[in-house]
């Protein structure tokens, strides 16, 4: 017995990795549950405004996004720096908005249609002229539920400083 013991001490035993799949699966399930698929490739830079009275958007499937902001660096040669609207994966003009909303509404189940929410994700430097145009188009398309996408500020005081 003594001989065998000595042998064992010398060779470094391999680390038991049989629990590794379990750990990885645990992580995997966490990400699968927490994940939201990246739907669009953002072509405009969106630096969201900050607000405290914000509510969570409950059902993701009912939300349609409208992005507004200056085109990103790589698109600036082609599209300039003037703030633009992005719908799905492409730049759009204000006239495209109404058909887009109608199309999105058609794609949803009939009982869900009145609950459809339009989430406006706009950069805080965008002028209200553009946002007002968007709002008018949404009203024309009878999409009345909107949400101004904003971030929760780290502290409430930051809201009142002039730089954001």
């Amino acid at each position, binding site marked *: 017995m003594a001989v065998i013991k000595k042998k064992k001490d010398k060779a470094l035993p391999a680390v038991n990795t049989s629990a590794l*799949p379990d750990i990885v699966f645990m992580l995997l399930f966490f990400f699968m549950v927490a994940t939201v698929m990246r739907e669009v490739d953002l072509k405009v830079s969106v630096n969201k*405004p900050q607000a405290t009275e914000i*509510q*969570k*958007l409950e059902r993701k499937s009912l939300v349609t996004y409208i992005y507004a902001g200056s085109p990103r660096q790589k698109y600036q040669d082609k599209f300039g720096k003037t703030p633009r609207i992005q719908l799905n994966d492409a730049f759009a003009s204000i006239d495209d908005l109404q058909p887009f909303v109608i199309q999105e509404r058609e794609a949803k189940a009939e009982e869900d249609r009145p609950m459809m929410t339009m*989430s406006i994700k706009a950069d805080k*430097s965008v002028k209200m*002229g553009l*946002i007002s145009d968007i709002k008018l188009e949404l009203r024309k398309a009878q999409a*009345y539920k909107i949400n101004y996408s904003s971030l929760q500020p780290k502290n409430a005081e930051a809201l009142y400083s002039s730089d954001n």
Partner: protein
Amino acid sequence: MARNKRAIPEINAGSMADIAFLLLIFYLVTTTMDTDKGINRKLPPIDDELVQDPPPIKERNIFTVLVNSNDQLLVEEEYLEISELRAKAMEFIDNNGDGSCEYCQGYGVGTSSDNPDKAVISLQNDRGTSYGMYVKVQNELVAAYEDLRERYAEEEYGRSYRGMDPEEDKEIIKEIKNAYQQKISEAEPLNIGG
């Protein structure tokens, strides 16, 4: 024992970890953790018939908030900082000029609103106003109502309004919302300093 030997050999699970890793990495890459939050608002429908004869609202029941293209505020014809807006709006909503609101704690000033039910906040911005400022103003106005509701909930129910469960306390929330009904009206934007 002999039976055991004939049984199906165990499946080699050594590569399971690899497969799981592959999936894990896929989800790690495609995931976006940003939670979607924002200020919920409702747009008014376009209704031509209604516009023709709007019901008269007394001047004192309207709280006008103007934002110009330099992101400056003009509230009730007075220059105001954004940090003062909430208190000012609360004072207006809670004024209780005609004394019909039992839970209000306002001063009852004759030049301010009659009661929360009649008080209307009118917001008008310029086309040159920045969206950031607009959201800030909206936020303050909504916060004014929320703060009043919070106070009302504390006094009537001894509970925090913000901490209530939307399903369980449905009736209470409805009642509180009714006590301080959000009345924020938005006018078409001006185009002065574009």
